[in-house]
């Protein structure tokens, strides 16, 4: 009896994990997407890892609109390289976008979004893009890039109000996963800010503006204390039916008075 101790392949000529598979069949060779091929003699490739990165973004929905906050740092690895960068953008009068992850990719997607806003203005038909629509569009773009193994390494918060003044707040990540909630965050904010805000949510109503601002201030403080890739300066975007703008930069209310009492280890 043949003792075949190696596992036999379950199928042949079919898809293999991690490889591109040509579903159209035939002998057409699978090719890397154009943007991933470079003209080097030995097939040189550049790293597509995230290098210049923004850290957390926190968004909170309140009864009149949304607040989206992010610190003003873009790090270069562990170097706090660019310390005065706006990471919360006003897209149009209804939409705020908070960007984290690779900042070059954020700027790239923002250039695309700005084109769409210019188109909206050119049509001039009284209909402008709503935050939910932008979130959907981003989902599709990011999912497609991810499926072609060339992701945009970003994690964004999309917030704003629709034409009736109803607030919207969503989070789209680099793989095209999106969801809406009354509080969303990226990066470390997901671990530190989300539980903080969810704990304080009144069961039967939305946050008031007062509560939302206090939560933003506290979240940014905790994020500065506990995230190494952060600085104590942040901007906050506010989007309501009446106003959509970026405010700041504000300073984190840091408190180090207890540190004198710590001696030794």
């Amino acid at each position, binding site marked *: 009896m043949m003792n075949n101790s190696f596992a036999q392949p379950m199928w042949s000529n079919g898809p293999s994990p991690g490889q591109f598979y040509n579903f159209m069949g035939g002998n057409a060779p699978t090719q890397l997407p154009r943007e991933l091929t470079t003209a080097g003699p030995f097939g040189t490739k550049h790293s597509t890892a995230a290098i210049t990165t923004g850290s957390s973004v926190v968004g909170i929905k309140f009864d009149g609109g949304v607040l989206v906050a992010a610190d003003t740092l873009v790090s270069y690895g*562990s170097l*706090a390289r660019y310390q005065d960068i706006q990471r919360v953008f006003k897209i149009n009068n209804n939409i705020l976008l908070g960007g984290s992850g690779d900042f070059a990719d954020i700027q790239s997607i923002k250039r695309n979004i700005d084109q769409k806003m210019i188109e909206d203005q050119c049509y001039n038909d009284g209909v402008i893009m709503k935050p939910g629509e932008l979130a959907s569009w981003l989902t599709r773009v990011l999912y497609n890039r991810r499926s072609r193994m060339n992701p945009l390494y970003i994690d964004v918060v999309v917030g704003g109000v629709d034409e009736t003044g109803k607030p919207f707040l969503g989070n789209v990540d680099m793989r095209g996963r999106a969801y809406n909630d009354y509080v969303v965050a990226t990066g470390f904010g997901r671990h530190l800010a989300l539980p903080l805000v969810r704990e304080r949510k009144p069961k039967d109503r939305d946050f008031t503006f007062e509560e939302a601002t206090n939560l933003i201030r506290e979240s940014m403080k905790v994020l500065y204390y506990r995230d190494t890739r952060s600085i104590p300066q942040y901007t906050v975007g506010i989007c309501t039916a009446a106003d959509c703008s970026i405010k700041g930069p504000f300073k984190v*209310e840091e408190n180090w008075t*207890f*540190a004198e009492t*710590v001696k*030794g280890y």
Partner: protein
Amino acid sequence: MDNCDYFGGTTIIAVEFDGGVVMGADSRTSCRTYVSNRSADKLTRITDHIYCCRSGSASQTQTLANTVAYAMNYYECSMGEPALVRDAAVHFRNKIYDSRQTMMASIIVAGWDRRHGGQVYSVPITGLMVHEPCAVAGSGAAYIQGFVTAHYRPGMQQADTVELVKNAVQLAIQHDCSSGGIVRLGVINEYGMDACVCCDKDPAMVKYANTLLWNLEFGIW
């Protein structure tokens, strides 16, 4: 290397001056990108007149410091006189050099003794020991090496040296994500070690100013 360096990021510095040494350190212990301790004390006592600045893996450097402090205490009890700074540095060097394959510890030993006055010894990861008047170490050191070289002069007075150390650590905190928190300073001279915390931000003022700005920006009056 450890899967998670508990003490990967730091800025530590020690500078000799006429009459002693000034040591400075940040207060952040990071575990990759999480700050596990934002008020750490990296200036560790070996004897009353010899302290060390620790960088690298926290567990390893803490144990090392315990061991060397024990050895120096034994020496002081046997000899009946204060230990020499160089002896403490040699102890660190022996331990780090012998285990350098498995260890990640970079130490600056600084202190005062009657024979040679204020001294600073650098014992980096590789286990070499060198006496230098002005030493920086840790991940934040890279960003301030130029600054320290440009501003250090031999024979400075205590006040100037304290300013140099404080500014250097503050700059490193500003640029290095793995260093942060407040600046811990220590001055060692013939009378012992005097530690202090440099934090020029009054939290009440910061909170008041920020609340004002917030109200102004959002139009709440």
